[in-house]
């Protein structure tokens, strides 16, 4: 079974305890009413749809926390996971691990 490292539990745990929660690092606009229709559409619906490393959010049922992960969408390999709120991790270091 695929094991995912939870940065809060500090343990690698089975995939079945985790839920995918969309792309990561999408900040909600500070003033939504100032956005044009196109900008609001982009915020709501337009995603990277990456082939390869993808920044995404996951939730662990054990600790009830959302966290960020970089997962390769081709191989389904988790390159790294880190806590929610931390800045976007650079890809180069992680891919070499």
């Amino acid at each position, binding site marked *: 079974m695929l094991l995912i490292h939870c940065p809060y539990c500090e343990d690698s745990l*089975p*995939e079945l*305890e985790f839920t995918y929660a969309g792309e990561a690092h999408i900040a909600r606009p500070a003033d939504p009413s100032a956005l044009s229709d196109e900008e609001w559409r982009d915020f709501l619906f337009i995603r990277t749809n990456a082939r390869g490393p993808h920044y995404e959010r996951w939730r662990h049922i*054990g*600790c*009830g926390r959302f966290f960020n992960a970089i997962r390769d969408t081709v191989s389904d390999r988790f390159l790294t996971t880190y806590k929610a709120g931390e800045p976007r991790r650079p890809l180069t270091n992680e891919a070499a691990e």
Partner: protein
Amino acid sequence: MMTSQKHDFAAAAIRIEDAAPALRLSLRVKPAHRDAVGRALGLDLPARVGQRAQAGDIQALCLGPDEWLIAAPEGAPLADAARAVYADAPHSLVDISDREITLRLSGPAVLDLLAACCPRNLAAMAVGSAARTVFDSATVILWRDGPADFRMDVWRSFAPHVRSLLAQAQAEIAAGL
């Protein structure tokens, strides 16, 4: 005369019992106020997910970075103690006693029983720790009290499903499958 033979083989391999009703509290508090609330409750609230603390009959389990489950005998006056420090250490303490039931699972084959539906490697789980995990997609909290002694807190609405799965796995293990 009719004779009957009661097949009792491997009956002791697994025991599934209902635990007595208990007080269960869900505590949410920011790490900065953890010690203050812990002192009020008479508990040294653990900081690491999965760790437990015990003071007399009262047990605390760290479920997440800011979430604890407190189990105590019915009627323990914990809410009053916590209310006294609320002004200095804001927190949420919710009585969830009736949300869940507790099953006590024990016996030499208990790890096989749990492995039937729980994806976590429970053999590697430390005795005296606990974890929130899934049992065939139902969220459960497993407390490991001994090498072959577990408690399972399961939501009431999931209990019939979990019980039927446990009974089926128990029968399969008893039959040597």
